[in-house]
């Protein structure tokens, strides 16, 4: 597994833990009301579980197993994918902070960074989606 995939997958596992913790608190709070403030964790739960866990894991595994090129850069220009890693994780953090502190511009900025990250990942890996034996 390449180093960047290790970072993506480990980040996704951390987000899984955060998403499960928020989700567990939400469900337990539905059973026995601990605090109404816990409902404020819903956006964080969705962001951690969907973008942080599932989307990020998919990106890490894709970077690992998509067809490679022959030559010095088997996975193309990796800078795009590194940018994706940083951008997506920063974006998730901003969206979660908005959920906790009520500053909507953080969600706007966070979603923008998530979009930037996904676009960077697509650009960086676009040409790796190719038939077997195709050189480009």
């Amino acid at each position: 597994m390449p180093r960047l995939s290790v970072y993506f997958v480990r980040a996704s596992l951390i987000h899984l833990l955060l998403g499960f913790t928020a989700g567990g608190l939400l469900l337990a709070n539905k059973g026995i009301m601990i605090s109404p403030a816990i409902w404020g964790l819903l956006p964080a739960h969705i962001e951690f579980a969907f973008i942080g866990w599932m989307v990020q894991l998919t990106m890490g595994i894709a970077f690992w197993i998509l067809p490679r090129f022959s030559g010095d850069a088997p996975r193309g220009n990796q800078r795009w994918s590194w940018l994706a890693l940083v951008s997506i994780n920063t974006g998730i953090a901003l969206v979660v902070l908005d959920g906790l502190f009520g500053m909507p511009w953080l969600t706007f900025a966070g979603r923008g960074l998530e979009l930037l990250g996904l676009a960077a990942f697509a650009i960086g890996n676009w040409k790796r989606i190719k038939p077997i034996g195709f050189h480009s």
Partner: protein
Amino acid sequence: MPTLTRWFLKAALVYLILALATGIFLVLPDANSIAGYFPVYFHMLTFGWLTQLIFGIALWMFPRYSSARPRGAEWLGWVTFILLNTGLILRIVFEPLHGAAPSHLSSWMLVISAFLQWLAGVVFVANTWKRVKEK
């Protein structure tokens, strides 16, 4: 494919079918009058289907822990499977019941369900972390 992975994948497929059937049920008139059905539908898809599928494939395909124990502590994988499914089944049964008529039993079953599902995630991460490594 290891036995544990087969269990994860077959359970995931069962939840996919149940989720899609629940999705049909939700379209029926008055189905949404009970608050618990939509979250159950959503979590059967994202947790019972997608997350369980990922867990099963990860246990199979991730880099080996060691040549002697390629999948780490395999019993932890079984613990994950049992916790995840017990927690999710409790939720499927008791969340709609709680939505229709809250009771002491349904309240505590949701708390137990939440704890079991959370613990499933913790055990999976603990057992998988060291297998996420550079070649």
